[in-house]
């Protein structure tokens, strides 16, 4: 199998690292070689963050380049626009509709583009949009927006849904299992 590439993007502090951790674990269980490249340090302070997940028979590079991603999972609209060039033509973009203004926008030095997702929809990509934050809140806490998005992505990964449920069960703290599984289901159905 050729290497598959998944990009997870968002804003530092949004919990992008848990989604990549779960994916990595799952692909290892499936017997693939896996590389997951994370961003620690400065950009975790509210900057634009990206995690690269790659799996296949043998993975060399830990990073994903422009035009290489099969799937992008985005926690925020502006980040969807920023990382769009990393998607393969015809690839899948799963984007939350959440909007977080970056500092230049807050200060009025730059404009947040209007109707980002509508404009992306016109391109040669498959867009799945969902309000991950709202769905997370209905599952119990805003903190599991990452699991909602994972749920939405799983439909495109060709791995049994039960497998993901097992991985979530064995990874998240026991007290949060039920909430996370609810969030997963809501994302999966979205």
């Amino acid at each position, binding site marked *: 199998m050729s290497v598959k590439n998944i990009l997870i993007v968002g804003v530092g502090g949004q919990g992008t690292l848990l989604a990549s951790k779960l994916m990595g674990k799952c692909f290892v269980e499936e017997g693939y070689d896996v590389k997951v490249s994370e961003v620690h340090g400065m950009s975790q*302070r509210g900057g*634009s963050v990206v995690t690269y997940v790659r799996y296949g028979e043998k993975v060399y590079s*830990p990073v994903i380049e422009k035009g290489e991603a099969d799937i992008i999972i985005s926690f925020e609209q502006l980040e969807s626009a920023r990382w*769009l060039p990393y998607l*393969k033509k015809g690839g899948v973009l799963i984007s939350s509709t959440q909007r977080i203004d970056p500092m230049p926008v*807050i200060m009025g030095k730059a*404009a947040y*583009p209007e109707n980002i997702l509508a404009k992306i929809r016109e391109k040669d990509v498959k867009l799945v949009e969902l309000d991950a934050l709202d769905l997370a809140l209905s599952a119990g806490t805003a903190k599991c927006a990452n699991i909602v998005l994972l749920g939405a992505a799983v439909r495109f990964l060709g791995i049994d849904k039960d497998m993901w449920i097992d991985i979530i069960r064995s990874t998240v703290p026991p007290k949060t299992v039920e909430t996370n599984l609810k969030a997963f289901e809501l994302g999966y159905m979205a």
Partner: protein
Amino acid sequence: MKKALILGNEAVARGLWEAGVNVVSSYPGTPSTEITEFVSKYDDIYSEWAPNEKVAFEVAFGAATGGARSFCAMKHVGLNVAADPLYTASYIGVNGGMVCAVADDPGMHSSQNEQDSRHHAIASKTPMLEPSDSAECCAFAKIAFDLSERFNTPFLLRLSTRVSHARSLVELCDRKEIGVKEYKKDVMKNVMMPAMARGAHVRVEERLLALTDFADGEAVLAGINTVEYNEKKIGIIAAGTSFVYAREALGTKASYLKLGMVNPLPVKLIKDFAKEVDEVIVVEELDDIIETHCIKLGIKVKGKELFSRLGEFSQATVKAALTNEKADFVSFDEDIPARPPVLCAGCPHRGLYYALKGMGLYVSGDIGCYTLGAQAPLSMMDSCVCMGASVSGLHGFNVARGSEQAKKSVAVIGDSTFIHSGITGLIDIAYNKGFSTVIVLDNSITGMTGHQNNPANGLTIKGDPTVSVNLEALARAVGFNNVRVVDPFDIEVTKATVKEELAKEEPSLIISRRPCALLKTVRHSAPVVVDEEKCIGCKACLNVGCPALSQTKRESGKYLAVIDKTQCVGCGVCASACKFDAIGKGE
């Protein structure tokens, strides 16, 4: 055999544990920090955070002299701080093995420069290994200890962001208990005075030759340096991340000499490889060290004429230089605003900066979360060089520009950074009769690198209570008679205190004390609320630069302040900025 998907840094920690390491001392620094955090979870290894990298290196070297396998980790610029002990430790050699990991940051994800630490290996004549993934992080860490003892030298382990912070598969093995070797007094070996050092230098040069032989022969058998012959039109020489990018980009269309040992570099191995391929291309991030070595050997290579000395590479960099492949993608057609990192909502540094704003100060800055205050809208920093430079730099600035300038200048420095190397600058000010005003931003944690305990917060690496440096008493002890403590959320008092201290023709230390908002022990207030009757949309509150605060258009058509309740922790700094009393406490 159990396999695990782990970070390069965790794999280094695992390798240390498996190698029977006894003592680890480090100072945090992205991307090296997690190595020591993971080590601290092993109960059979003594671990500690040291005040700085020089101390960490010396602790590890002292432990090695005492017969233990020992280790220290730091970021690339940390090795500058530890360079002094490194260069002479190289002369002395070891008893128990010693390894120092140094993590470079090409592309400067979290650093103030992108220096190439291989220069330190060459200059200090210390051997250096460079892994390219987590499996090698673990394996090379282990091999390095055997080689350290065999060749009687500390070893350097070079990492980089994409190795340290990438997860890949590692086979987990058991720990091999080594114990602590016997210590015998040996003045000729361990005391470096001119008479002994002359002999030591001779041994160092001999050792380098022996290590070069090792690189040419045994290193290949041990899987440290590897050769892969495929199509022979292009032969790539590369190490670490550069190797994986090249291998990904070119596959079997090229042959590869992968160097796991980057100092000393092999000679015969490279010459033989060059003979087998039509054209030799060196792919290396940052400086042209392998390329220069090849040129010295009289081998025709292409390197920096194809690849930049700047930034991080990827498979795309290699493809662009060596193939006709073009990436095909769609993009968004409008300008996309940047999203720089910012001080968190509720960050105590924001209050301090907001208090200083408008006072027309020269702010001598330093490194930590508080460096983010250099950016708009706070824009509260005039300089930032390296850890500790705020204090000594301010003294120099004030000496150059005179006492009137000193009344309009401050240094800002975090608690961890102050302990790291701000203290010596403070002594310099007092001793030389300066009258600078230094502000320590004491948030009870090493924030920027992800929350490590430090000597000023009373907790060890394992979270156990310990003594903490009393900053007030310390400043007095070195000769500062004016020492004040303020709460940075009390903007008016902070302002007044700074003004008073600046007016004095004596040195002053102000401690701006409030714990980091992300600490689990910190209790938050309810989000603040905007009174829409009072808010006139003047934007004054936006000048505090809080990510939880922006303006939205209301039904009335007016733009008014709005609070993001998921982020706001009710610190109230924005309320201090509002002249119309439109931001109030929430419930």
